[in-house]
């Protein structure tokens, strides 16, 4: 099978969609071409994943593109969110044009950058050279900052400015870390020169790297890429950008961009672990993970805005995933990988729901959104089940992943970590459930003027699909997914036999 073709299709289709929709300036065409491109992408991602899982990793163009199981998994996660968001943005953008005075120019700029953003995220996990990967992450920042100002308001400009400034400074630190990684393999006078920045080469020759420099470089990488992931204390831009962006973009930012940035940290985690032993990088990831969970939960408790609520929930989830990778072991890493999938599925559902609320109630304030159940029954039904799935109540896949991570912390003897994690999860459980409960079941305002009833099926089908998947995965994990995740666990953490 010639995999070049499929990779080419995956990359070229969002690019063509973005350019053609911008040039032709036809609304219907723009909507459906991005839907078509994202459907092609999701098919292509499955084919790439199937090939990598059953045959061998793909190396193309003199090893410039390297796709192993981990990369293929990330490509699939990104294209799932791209597909769902492009369905949802049909509904969201029609409503924005009709009700929110969005101009045609703004709409076509949105379509241009929406597909370009997907393109930059899809290419990131394929890149072998870590410096080029970082620059690609920087490009995702730029494309998505233009998406944040899809509707130009003072607030959205503020959010976009904070986003681009904080993340660019973060990426420059990560670039410094990358250069130090290169230095660690190129010490003058050393016998073993590792003159490459490809993760494949660095991973193979990790034992030859200079340990002192790798220590500092790994910390810089975690700080730099952690800014992009939204780990605390570098998370300051996250709630602003996620709440001001249009909902389909918030879903892409939260559910896939965070995973793509975390992918880089985990690649370096593997390299640093092979060079230094896993003790040092694990402690760093555990610390930063716990702190992010803390900040995320505190943000959830004191939150009055529906979209900022889920932004803090993203910070919490990323903290849990980082903690899972940090705890290592087979359960921890497996749980973290599964949590990535669960986060992708449930978080996109929640952002789409919050977007529907925003269009109906014209506000993000939780206290003013009441009685959605009587006004938009289908959205409310999916939203309430989604919030239960998001906090990890048993039939959801997030329950399994969080349970595995707790299990790993008990197995390794980190009892304090387990207790803290359970405490925070309970706090998040209570406060998220109260808030979404008051939105969905609260007493509706009698003066509520807008028309009752749901929006078009494009507004709730993209909520239904990932929610159903996350509930089914909670009951039954297919053997293919199981094998894939076990394979990735062995790639990341080589000491597990």
């Amino acid at each position, binding site marked *: 099978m010639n995999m070049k073709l499929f990779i080419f299709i995956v990359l070229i289709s969002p690019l063509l969609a973005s350019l053609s929709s911008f040039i032709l300036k036809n609304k219907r065409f723009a909507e459906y071409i991005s839907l078509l491109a994202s459907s092609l992408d999701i098919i292509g991602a499955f084919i790439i994943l199937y090939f990598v899982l059953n045959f061998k990793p793909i190396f193309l163009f003199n090893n410039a593109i390297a796709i192993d199981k981990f990369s293929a998994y990330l490509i699939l996660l990104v294209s799932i969110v791209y597909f769902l968001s492009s369905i949802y943005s049909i509904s969201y953008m029609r409503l924005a044009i009709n009700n929110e005075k969005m101009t045609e120019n703004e709409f076509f700029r949105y379509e241009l950058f929406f597909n370009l953003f997907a393109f930059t995220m899809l290419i990131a996990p394929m890149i072998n050279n870590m410096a080029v990967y970082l*620059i690609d992450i920087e490009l995702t920042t730029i494309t998505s900052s233009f998406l944040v100002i899809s509707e130009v308001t003072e607030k959205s400009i503020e959010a976009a400015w904070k986003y681009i400034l904080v993340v660019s400074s973060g990426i420059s630190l990560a670039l410094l870390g990358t250069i130090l990684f*290169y230095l660690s393999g190129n010490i003058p006078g050393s016998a073993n020169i590792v003159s490459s920045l490809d993760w494949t080469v660095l991973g193979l020759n990790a034992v030859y790297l200079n340990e002192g420099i790798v220590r500092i470089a790994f910390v810089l990488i975690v700080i730099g890429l952690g800014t992009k992931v939204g780990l605390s204390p570098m998370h300051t831009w996250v709630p602003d950008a996620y709440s001001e962006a249009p909902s389909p973009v918030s879903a892409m930012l939260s559910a896939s961009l965070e995973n793509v940035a975390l992918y880089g940290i985990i690649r370096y985690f593997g390299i640093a672990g092979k060079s230094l032993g896993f003790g040092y990088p694990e402690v760093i990831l555990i610390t930063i993970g716990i702190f992010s969970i803390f900040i995320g939960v505190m943000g959830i408790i004191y939150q009055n805005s529906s979209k900022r609520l889920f932004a803090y929930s993203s910070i919490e989830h990323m903290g849990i995933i980082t903690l899972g990778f940090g705890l290592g072991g087979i359960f921890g890493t497996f749980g973290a990988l599964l949590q990535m999938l669960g986060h992708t599925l449930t978080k996109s559902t929640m952002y789409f729901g919050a977007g529907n609320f925003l269009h109906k109630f014209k506000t993000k304030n939780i206290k003013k959104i009441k009685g959605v159940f009587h006004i938009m029954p289908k959205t409310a039904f999916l939203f309430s089940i989604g919030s239960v799935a998001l906090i990890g109540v048993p039939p959801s896949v997030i329950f399994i992943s969080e349970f595995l991570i707790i299990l790993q912390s008990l197995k390794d003897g980190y009892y304090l970590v387990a207790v803290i994690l359970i405490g925070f999860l309970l706090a998040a459980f209570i406060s998220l459930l109260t808030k979404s409960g008051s939105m969905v079941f609260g007493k509706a305002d009698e003066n509520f003027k807008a028309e009752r009833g749901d929006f078009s099926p494009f507004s709730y089908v993209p909520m239904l699909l990932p929610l159903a998947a996350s509930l089914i995965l909670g009951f039954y994990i297919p053997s293919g997914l199981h094998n894939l995740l076990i394979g990735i666990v062995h790639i990341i953490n080589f000491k597990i036999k």
Partner: protein
Amino acid sequence: MLGYSMPLYIYVIEDLLVSLVLLSSFVMLSSRWISFYIHAYGFQSFLIFVLTLILGIEAQSVDLYLVAFLTLFVRTIFVPYILLKMIKKFNIKEEVKLTLKIPFSIISGVVLTVIAYFLIYRLISPFSSKIVVNVASIALSLIFVGFFMIISRFTTITHILGLLVIENGIFLLSVAVVPTLPIIVELVVLFDILVTVTAMLILSMFMKMRTGSFSTSMLNRLVG
């Protein structure tokens, strides 16, 4: 590699150039005028171009020549040109609003430079010559000063310049410490600078149109 078989005056010139680079970052710290800032940045980039060229001759690396000339075009000419044009076009009130007084900024810059020397000395002195340690320390201090400039000045243009100074520092560090770095890395970094600066300028134009100024101190609506 650095530090072999070059006449002594080359090292003297390198030391001189790199100390001028440090001086230009202090000029930025002590100035109140945006156009002054931009000229100081252009001057700093020009010094880095000359330094890269000398290092290229020393290491006999064609890649470094190429990178040096790209630096000349992008960092020294193009970026300052569009920034100055932007200022002229929007007729910016030129004075920068400082949160910290200038003497305090300079003292902070000195402290940051000392920290940079200390860190670099600990990190690379076992295997590097003195001149490399010197250049790398000043490069790291540029990174610190860039961050300091971002947090202590509240206009969009100075934020962009702060990021550019950080990029200059990273570039100087990479050519001094690892001259063998693959050229693709330097190229994509330059490309990244172009794209980032353009995007940030477009954003700040939007900001100017909406709020009527380039000041970021009024960006305080989103909290919590």
